[in-house]
């Protein structure tokens, strides 16, 4: 059984006056196995964000199903959603979304505190994680004292401290320079090597070339997918670029 299964997902946004709706997602189906590192690529307006919002249970689909560990997310009651999200999903955002009022340590603790864990347990979880992410020395600093890359690694730590089934990342490298991007993507790779399932939405070819599998989304549909297999990062980069070129020129009515 796949960890995450998306079946015939469709999302229509209707305007308030009830005019013609906009079909953000037409018919999306795919599955993510446990331990995979999947990138979803697409231009802006291709439905990436809508898809991620539905996967994150922040938005409900118009039709179709999302199964996590075989459980239909539509069946989770509204008031249990927050806890469900907290326990199963970890989020990393483009603009970090750290809280200025908290130290790095407290930012990372936040989801656990909300889950009512005690300090000893939180600390026990934090130390190895901070080690992996290389933010040991930063724990007592405040977000405004950190660089972009350090902020994003803090955000990753916050997402992982609940030990989520899937790490959802929305343009995680969008606000980082190339060096910080590179090191973050290496962190993702090594996390994935330890068995963490990652689903990343991006339009950076470099970011996508680190993933094991890349899905291409166009006009609300899965257009294509690429497996990395034994290819190197460079080869993958070329392959993804090629696919994007074909996909973009296809947009101009060219088969």
């Amino acid at each position: 059984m796949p960890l995450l299964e998306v079946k015939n997902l469709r999302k229509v946004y209707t305007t308030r006056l009830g005019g013609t709706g906009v079909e953000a997602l037409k018919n999306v189906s795919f599955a993510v196995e446990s331990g995979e590192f999947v990138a979803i690529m697409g231009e802006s307006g291709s439905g990436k964000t809508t898809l991620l919002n539905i996967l994150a249970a922040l938005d409900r689909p118009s039709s179709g199903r999302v199964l996590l560990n075989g459980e239909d997310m539509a069946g989770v009651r509204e008031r249990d959603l927050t806890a469900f999200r907290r326990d199963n999903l970890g989020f990393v955002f483009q603009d970090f979304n750290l809280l200025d009022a908290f130290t790095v340590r407290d930012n990372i603790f936040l989801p656990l505190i909300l889950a009512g864990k005690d300090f000893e347990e939180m600390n026990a979880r934090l130390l190895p994680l901070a080690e992996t992410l290389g933010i040991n020395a930063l724990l007592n600093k405040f977000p405004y004292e950190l660089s972009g890359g350090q902020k994003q690694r803090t955000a990753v730590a916050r997402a992982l401290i609940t030990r989520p089934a899937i790490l959802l990342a929305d343009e995680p490298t969008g606000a980082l320079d190339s060096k910080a991007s590179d090191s973050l993507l290496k962190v993702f790779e090594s996390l994935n090597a330890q068995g963490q399932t990652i689903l990343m939405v991006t339009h950076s070819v470099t970011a996508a070339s680190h993933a094991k599998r890349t899905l291409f989304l166009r006009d609300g549909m899965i257009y294509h997918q690429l497996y990395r297999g034994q290819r190197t990062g460079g080869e993958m980069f070329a392959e993804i670029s090629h696919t994007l070129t074909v996909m973009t020129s296809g947009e101009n009515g060219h088969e």
Partner: protein
Amino acid sequence: MNKLGFYPRLAARSLRLNGKFYLPYLLSGMVSAAMLYDILFLNMNQGIYYLKGANAVQGLLGFGAMVVALFSFALICYTNGFLMKRRQKELGLYNVLGMEKRHMARLLLWETIYAALICIVGGLILGVLLSKLFLLLLCAVMQAEVPFGFEVPQDAVIYTAVAFGAIFLLNYLLNLLRLGRVKPIELLKGTESGEREPKTKWLLAILGLLAMGAGYFLSLTVSDPLNALLLFFLAVILVIVGTYCLFTAGSIALLKALRKNKRYYYQTRHFTAVSGMLHRMKRNAAGLAAICILSTMVLVTVSTTLCLYMGVSDILDRMYCRDVQTYVNYGAPEDLPKVKAVYEQKARELGVQMQDFAALCFYGPATEYTNNRTDIEPYLKRANGADVVGDPADGPMRVYVGCNLPADADASLFSAAVEVATHDLELSTTWCFTDDCRAGRTDFWSSLGGFFFIGLFLGSLFLMAAVLIVYYKQVSEGYEDARSFVIMQQVGMTQREVKESIRSQVSTVFFLPLIAAACHTIGAFPMTKKILLLFGLSNTRLFLLCSAATVLIFAIVYYGIYRLTAREYYRIVKR
């Protein structure tokens, strides 16, 4: 587009767009202008001028007018500073779009003109409408007849307009100064610069503790009423300084200590509240201290003046227990028969029948004996051939002679006659006073009534200021916190937890000043009690009741404000 009309229109538009912030500003400006006009109106009112005891009251009203004007200035400066900070981004945008600083100065000038016009014209209209009501109220508490007619003293209008014109002009100059100092990039960034975590300032905390302790110590240990009056202002200043220091330094020290306690800190309820408060305590503290001090001012002013007013008849019974009375201070028993003879002689000459005649020597405060109009007899002892009451240990000896007169007799004529005659006597001291107590009573009623009125008047002004500060604090923090709460929800905070954490934070911030203000009021109690003694009021129970009632009513009003602004805060955060 007509170039000439560009800035006026832009200014009008920006006032409208920032309505949420400008409305309370304009409203409070308007109300302060109305209050200034009304207090000037009462001060200049011809009808009051001829009332008994109006002199003291009108002097007091003049003083009150100065307080209102100064306070309005501080209030408008505060809100204006707040508004300018909020609008930095907008001004920065104008700057980027090619508006130079001198253009902005022109824009601000128009805005100031609009604001001044609205406040002055609106305030005067409101003031004129309310003036009759205030006059009625004043006459009611002074127990005087209401003068007929409706007048709008020109001078009051002019003074109000000039005072507020000057206030707004000064504010405009302050804004120009502010504008001159900032760089465009800073304008654009505006409020979003991250705030550094405040350091614990132990020295300041200790200083605050010392100042506060000294203020309380003064209040608790002062024994002499006259000293109490002199030291009162010192104590007030000490407590104000102490409050500021403790709110700024003490609160940070406390919150940091709470954060160190891991069991307490790492709980959903406390976590966000503690760190959120710590995060902006530096800015918060001044506002909270100001709210606390304003609340204390309201409480102390209203409770003491209320108590004085409620105790008037009590005081009168003590001070003026006969219609006409004579005191010989530091006197001797042999003075008594001389004064007594004067009374009997004058009564014969003027052909009036003296009633409740009393003549005695006593030691210590007069009030213990003389307020018993008829029951002096049991206290009397024979000493040196005269009736003496009390014991030399109670204080210097005084001679008291007094009588009531029939309703149709002229008390002022009688007292004047006695006064003149006693001056010709050979007494053991020159400290001999005769009072026409009928006139004294009316005077007293009206001046204490005036006191009470001004206490209420200033109290409501202070209350308005406190409300305004609270409102601006909540609204601006709401905008700052909105983002944090979105993030918390993404990380797994439920809607209910969000609400709970907001409530915990908001209510701490709100009720801290209230509790501190109540403490200050209680701390000031011994001192204000002594000062009330100067007015002849020694009824502690009455004072306790008045204080308790004032605190209770204030707390209810304050809670109402809390509910209103908390709702506004929720609405901003929930977006």
